[in-house]
């Protein structure tokens, strides 16, 4: 409650102090993200330098994997002290800023071409995966709203989609926590399995990137899974995932209307306003920077700088992916939501792999 002193304090003086405090609180966690990310980069470069100097053949393990593993080890051994948590939670902010900056590496024509293919594949995969997830939910006797959250999370956009859908369909906090935990656990598993499968199937960078972008749930994990394969695959994964993210509003709206029609959620008023509220704004930023790059607004060295800025932003993101994954917490969530998520994920991975194979064969990615 505001005291007499604070209520009479001029508003203009209070705000910069509060903003300053908020930023100061973030600094320890931001430094931790930077330290973990840079440690990953240092290990990658050291191994590459050593193997080159000694003429050894050793597969190049990207800094992405090192940063995630270091983060995982810290989070699941000593844990993240409270003073670091606020800063570590900004990893998603850096992800979005990095994606916007990555727009400079795409010409608008590439976006329309690959984005168009992604959109068509997303539409097919989305229909199949939502149907399959609901069948699974019924088979495993999950609560219908938990199934809806898992379906939205695994078919569209991981945690962001679950967070967007929870208030729209009036789902319980507990259901949202279960769904988020299952999606995060499965995202962590996909980071290690997708690159292995991609290499064993000899997928091209574009095909693999498209697959990772279409099948891996969370944007951070999809970006990391792509970058683990190659730089070019990472770029395509981000584009495919961004296309998927753009559909978040439509799917959440459909669920909101469905649950409202059953009298189990509040009715949706202005549908256009709802769509705009749920639309991920960083998609617009990504498109805007790409348009500027296509129009020749940036010189070549400036484009290199923007691409490198994007890489630094992703470095903080990948560190955050490891640091925020608490394996013990994930284990506490019970096996049924996890089983439904896992079976659904395998289904989505297979469907999207088939779609990408088909697109690569017929549309020549």
């Amino acid at each position, binding site marked *: 409650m505001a005291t007499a002193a604070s209520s009479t304090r001029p508003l203009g003086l209070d705000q910069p102090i509060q903003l300053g405090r908020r930023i100061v609180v973030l600094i320890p966690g931001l430094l931790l993200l930077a330290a973990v990310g840079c440690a990953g980069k240092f290990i990658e470069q050291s191994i590459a330098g050593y193997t080159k100097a000694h003429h050894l053949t050793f597969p190049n393990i990207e800094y992405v994997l090192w940063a995630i593993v270091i983060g995982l080890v810290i989070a699941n051994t000593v844990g993240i002290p409270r003073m670091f948590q606020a800063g570590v939670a900004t990893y998603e902010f850096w992800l979005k800023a990095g994606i916007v900056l990555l727009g400079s590496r795409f010409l608008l024509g590439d976006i329309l071409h690959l984005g168009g293919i992604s959109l068509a594949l997303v539409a097919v995969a989305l229909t199949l995966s939502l149907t399959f997830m609901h069948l699974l939910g019924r088979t495993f006797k999950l609560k219908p709203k938990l199934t809806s959250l898992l379906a939205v999370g695994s078919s569209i956009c991981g945690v962001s989609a679950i967070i*967007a859908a929870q208030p729209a369909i009036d789902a319980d906090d507990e259901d949202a926590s279960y769904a988020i935990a299952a999606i995060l656990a499965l995202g962590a598993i996909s980071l290690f399995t997708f690159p292995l499968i991609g290499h064993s199937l000899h997928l091209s960078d574009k095909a693999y990137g498209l697959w990772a972008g279409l099948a891996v749930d969370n944007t951070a994990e999809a970006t990391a899974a792509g970058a683990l394969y190659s730089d070019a695959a990472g770029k395509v994964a981000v584009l495919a995932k961004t296309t998927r993210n753009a559909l978040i509003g439509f799917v959440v709206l459909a669920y909101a209307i469905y649950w409202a029609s059953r009298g189990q959620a509040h009715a949706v008023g202005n549908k256009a306003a709802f769509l705009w509220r749920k639309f991920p*704004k960083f998609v617009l930023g990504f498109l*805007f920077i790409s348009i500027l790059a296509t129009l020749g607004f940036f010189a070549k060295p400036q484009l290199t700088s923007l691409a490198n800025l994007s890489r630094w932003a992703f470095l903080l993101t990948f560190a955050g992916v490891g640091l925020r994954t608490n394996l013990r917490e994930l284990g506490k969530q019970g096996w049924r939501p996890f089983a439904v998520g896992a079976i659904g994920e395998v289904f989505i991975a297979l469907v999207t792999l088939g779609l990408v194979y088909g697109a690569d064969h017929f549309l020549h990615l």
Partner: protein
Amino acid sequence: MPETIATNPRRGLSLDVYAVALALALALLVRLNLIPSIKW
């Protein structure tokens, strides 16, 4: 689950907008050569 910037729906919108604003500001600084070239 503890509430974080990432899991707080009320801060979701501003997070997106701030991220876009930062990225566009950096792009402008690079375009105007106001920051040195960024190395990786």
